[in-house]
């Protein structure tokens, strides 16, 4: 990489074309404010530092903006996932279940959509010998499976009630 060097042929060239122009003092064409070149580097340095800060902020937002498809998609995924994760069986049922699906679903899966209290109540309704206080979830499930209780309708009733 070469350094800047004035062309030594300039004066000779000018002497051929217009010698009078060689007689001018080229350095004093414009006056410059005192200390201007002493202060200019500091001014530029301050602007560069300000630009560096602006650039880092801008770069951050550009990175985010480049994900303009991913970010909304991620938000949608989070919302949908949140709906699925929700333990509110009522909302879950409204979103996911329909009667046709329920009729064909496995009982053990359907149990996830039935409120434990409602399940016990249904069991006792069907068999008054059972005592609610002695029924835990596992016992409820076992009883349901043994009796082949119509769990589908129980789920549907659960939806309607709620």
């Amino acid at each position, binding site marked *: *990489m*070469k*350094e*800047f*060097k*004035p*062309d030594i042929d*300039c004066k000779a060239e*000018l002497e051929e*074309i*217009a010698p*009078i*122009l060689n007689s*001018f*003092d*080229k350095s*004093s*064409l*414009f*006056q*410059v*404010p005192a200390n*201007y*070149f002493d202060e*200019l*580097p500091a*001014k*530029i*340095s301050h*602007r*560069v530092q300000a*630009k560096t800060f602006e650039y880092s902020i801008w770069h951050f937002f550009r990175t985010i903006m480049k994900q303009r498809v991913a970010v909304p998609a991620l938000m949608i995924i989070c919302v949908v996932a949140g709906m699925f994760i929700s333990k509110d069986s009522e909302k879950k049922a409204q979103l996911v279940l329909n009667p046709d699906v329920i009729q064909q679903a496995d009982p053990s899966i359907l149990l996830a959509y039935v409120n434990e209290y409602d399940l016990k109540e249904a069991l006792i309704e069907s068999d008054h010998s059972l005592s609610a206080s002695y029924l835990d979830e596992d016992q409820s499930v076992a009883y349901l499976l043994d009796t082949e209780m119509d769990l589908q309708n129980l789920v549907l009733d659960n939806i309607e009630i709620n």
Partner: protein
Amino acid sequence: MSHYEDKELLEMFREEQQSNYAFNLIVRKYQSRLYHHIRRIVIDHDDANDIIQNTFIKAWKGLSKFREDAHLYTWLYRIATNESITFLNQQKKRNVVSIENLGDSLQVNQSHGIGMNPDKMQEKLKQAIEALPEQQKLVFSLRYFDEMKYEDMSEVLNVSVGALKASYHHAVKKVEKFITGN
């Protein structure tokens, strides 16, 4: 004044801990030359001050991607020239200062003590240069004042050496005619 060569300055700039220092040295090395080049185009000191700062800001932004097959000073001159021309074009659109009123604006600058040399011949030279077409003005400025080689000017202005020689020849003749009154 920096005693570092351009190649050394670029190497320093690429090292993160020395980049600010290296850039500061580049500014100090080229500020005077670039300022006067800009000032000869836009005339007014305040405008030249804005443009030279913008020039170095752009240089700082682009320096990390600067290819070493180009020359640093021609690259800086090109940025300065483009910034100056852009400024003039914006001025034309805003119709801020017309050529006819340029003499008045120079008088205003003189009253603030910035820009005017009392020497009448210098003043005539300035007016002669200002009367040149834009391209000839640039060529004349770079060759006459900065004594830049035609090959370097070709890099700055993106014009062939032959065209530059012809343009300079015509510019010099016009300036001589203006000054001598012939």
